């Protein structure tokens, strides 16, 4: 049974601090390739940059299980040089523009430090402060001589931290999934063929997973990701009906989001596995959002698919916050469920 100790936390720290905005995932890919070297029967990097690793089981009648975790993160791309180290930029993936002014960033593969400048309160009017500043009015300021060029990506500069029972970082979405998948590959159970896909370009439309699923042609697919928790105490003590997930209640299992209706047999397999092992779980509130499962289930003639996510607060901002215990339970549930996976799971009624 894989466990999360100091080594795994160190790995998550390196992964979270790495910069891998969609389309430029090289820094995370390098870490992944080093960590899984020698742990799979076949490892390759495909045409779009996905890392595909196949670890064959040893028992008879094995299902081919695709596990997908996206390596990319939301961020920025410099688009024009205004001179004196000041750059215009665009957002890559979805980030609320209200989250941007005043944030420190790292630019390019050298992690050149910079800041998304904001006018100080002394120099703004009350009217101006009521409105969000559109992205095309914002600039990234590297200072004169700042080494960067249009096309370079940038991320928030928040270093990974442990905060009490929590994990804090800029890219827990989805380095939590990447770290989980690395541990599952290292501890792959013998009853399945584990097809690990560390995917690219999820944040801009599940593009890596689409081609990865076509290539791997699995019997079933599981996206391992991180999902928002919007569970802060309410001002009036009334429990809010819309929270997506809650911290501390364990891995979030998907029934429906905008991209996928999970295969009900796989949801039952996961909940049965959790209950048999005494592990906590929660059903993510059906609604919007999407994971790599949205691309996987539509591959070729169809693939039964489901998603499992670690809940975290404040994703797609400079710093999100997850609970260490939720991560541990997510890894434990996935591992225990995989060890129980037989062809009977898919032979049953939907």
């Amino acid at each position, binding site marked *: 049974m894989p466990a999360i100790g100091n080594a795994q936390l160190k790995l998550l720290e390196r992964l979270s601090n790495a910069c891998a905005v969609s389309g430029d995932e090289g820094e995370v890919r390098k870490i992944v390739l080093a960590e899984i070297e020698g742990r799979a029967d076949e490892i390759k990097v495909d045409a779009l940059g996905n890392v595909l690793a196949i670890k064959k089981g040893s028992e008879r009648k094995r299902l081919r299980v695709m596990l997908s975790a996206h390596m990319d993160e939301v961020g920025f791309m410099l688009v024009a040089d205004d001179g004196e180290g000041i750059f215009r930029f665009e957002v890559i993936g979805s980030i609320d523009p209200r989250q941007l002014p005043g944030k420190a960033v790292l630019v390019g593969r050298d992690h050149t430090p910079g800041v998304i400048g904001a006018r100080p309160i002394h120099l703004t009017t009350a009217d101006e402060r009521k409105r969000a500043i559109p992205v095309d009015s914002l600039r990234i300021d590297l200072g004169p001589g700042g080494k960067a060029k249009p096309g370079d990506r940038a991320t928030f500069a928040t270093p990974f931290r442990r905060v009490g029972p929590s994990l804090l970082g800029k890219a827990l979405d989805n380095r939590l999934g990447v770290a989980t998948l690395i541990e599952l590959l290292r501890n792959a159970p013998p009853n399945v063929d584990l097809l690990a896909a560390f995917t690219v370009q999820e944040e801009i439309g599940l593009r890596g997973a689409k081609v990865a699923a076509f290539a791997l042609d699995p019997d079933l697919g599981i996206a391992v990701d991180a999902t928002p928790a919007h569970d802060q105490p309410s001002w009036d003590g009334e*429990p809010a*009906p*819309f*929270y997506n997930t809650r911290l501390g209640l364990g891995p979030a299992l998907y*029934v*429906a989001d905008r991209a996928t*209706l*999970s295969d*009900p047999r796989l*949801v039952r397999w996961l909940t049965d596995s959790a209950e048999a092992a005494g592990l906590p779980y929660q*059903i993510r*509130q*059906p*609604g919007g959002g999407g994971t790599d499962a949205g691309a996987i*289930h*539509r*591959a*070729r*003639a*169809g*693939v*039964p698919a489901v998603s499992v996510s670690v809940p975290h607060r404040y994703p797609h901002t400079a710093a999100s916050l997850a609970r260490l215990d939720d991560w541990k339970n997510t890894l434990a549930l996935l591992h225990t469920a995989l060890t129980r996976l037989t062809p009977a799971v898919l032979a049953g*009624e*939907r």
Partner: protein
Amino acid sequence: MKSLIQKLTETFSPSGYENAIREVIRREVEPLADELRVDALGNLIARKGPSTGSGPAKGKKRLMLAAHMDEIGLIATHIDENGFVRFTGIGGIRPQALTGGRVRFVNGAAGVIGIERLSDPSKAPTLEQCFIDVGATSPKDCPVKVGDVCGFDRPFLDLGRRLVAKAMDDRIGCAVLIETLRALESTPHEVYFVFTTQEEVGLRGAHTAAFGVEPEIGLSVDVTGTGDTPKGSRMAVSLGKGPAIKVKDSGMLSDPRLVAWMCAGAEKARLPYQREVLEGGTTDAMAMQVSRAGVPAGCLSIPSRYIHSPSEMVDYEDVQNAVKLLTALVSKPIEW
């Protein structure tokens, strides 16, 4: 055929939960098909005619006829401390069609839809302001849990020539396919009658079924809107003027050769038909058309009023004429 339509429309199978309707349809088509299979996403695929493998002979085609068997529905997102069920939609749900409606869950539980007190009663409520009352008083005695799925609960209504039901979209298409399969004595083609899943959430079943079937022609059978109700949409399709041959909708341009083939087929068989341009909405044909290296695609539509409400209305003669037209079309060799 009316009793078949009643049986199909009174079955609850929202997108992703097509078990029940698949079993109903399976019982109908099993004795009629030369081969039957269910694929990974739950599409029910029935073959009629010779299995030709690759490269059928001249005039003989591998056809995919698709009607989706899923229906729009609701999915529970939260059970509050008094046992009220909050929900979101599966497929295109309009809140103004919900109030006072009754729902039936896949697990058998039933309920009624209520709304919060509106600060502006002249405005339609949002989905977030609606809830389902299943007669529970707490999460403990609530028969519904987060992730459970339900459909509208409304019995089939026979008005003589006009028929009304929930899920007429697209059980009426399923009925047309079943009756065509029944009427089809012989065909030179390899015809796949595909009852697809998850159409209402984005043509997902048809997408994967088309990859698996690899058709040379793709034809969907689905409902389309009309322009014949008081101050309704402007659309040159009416109930009772025959099945509609789609030229365009917002997701697909029909292959002109298919449109011509279908119109000529209707004229030859002396069947009424209408040419259809639908400005909002699309069908499984969109997914078939861009499958693999591309598939000539079209759609035979059943004109329908009040689509995506719990009471969708079709004309029984249009339905019967659709069966006649489709049967005539696939009975003969196709040349172009």
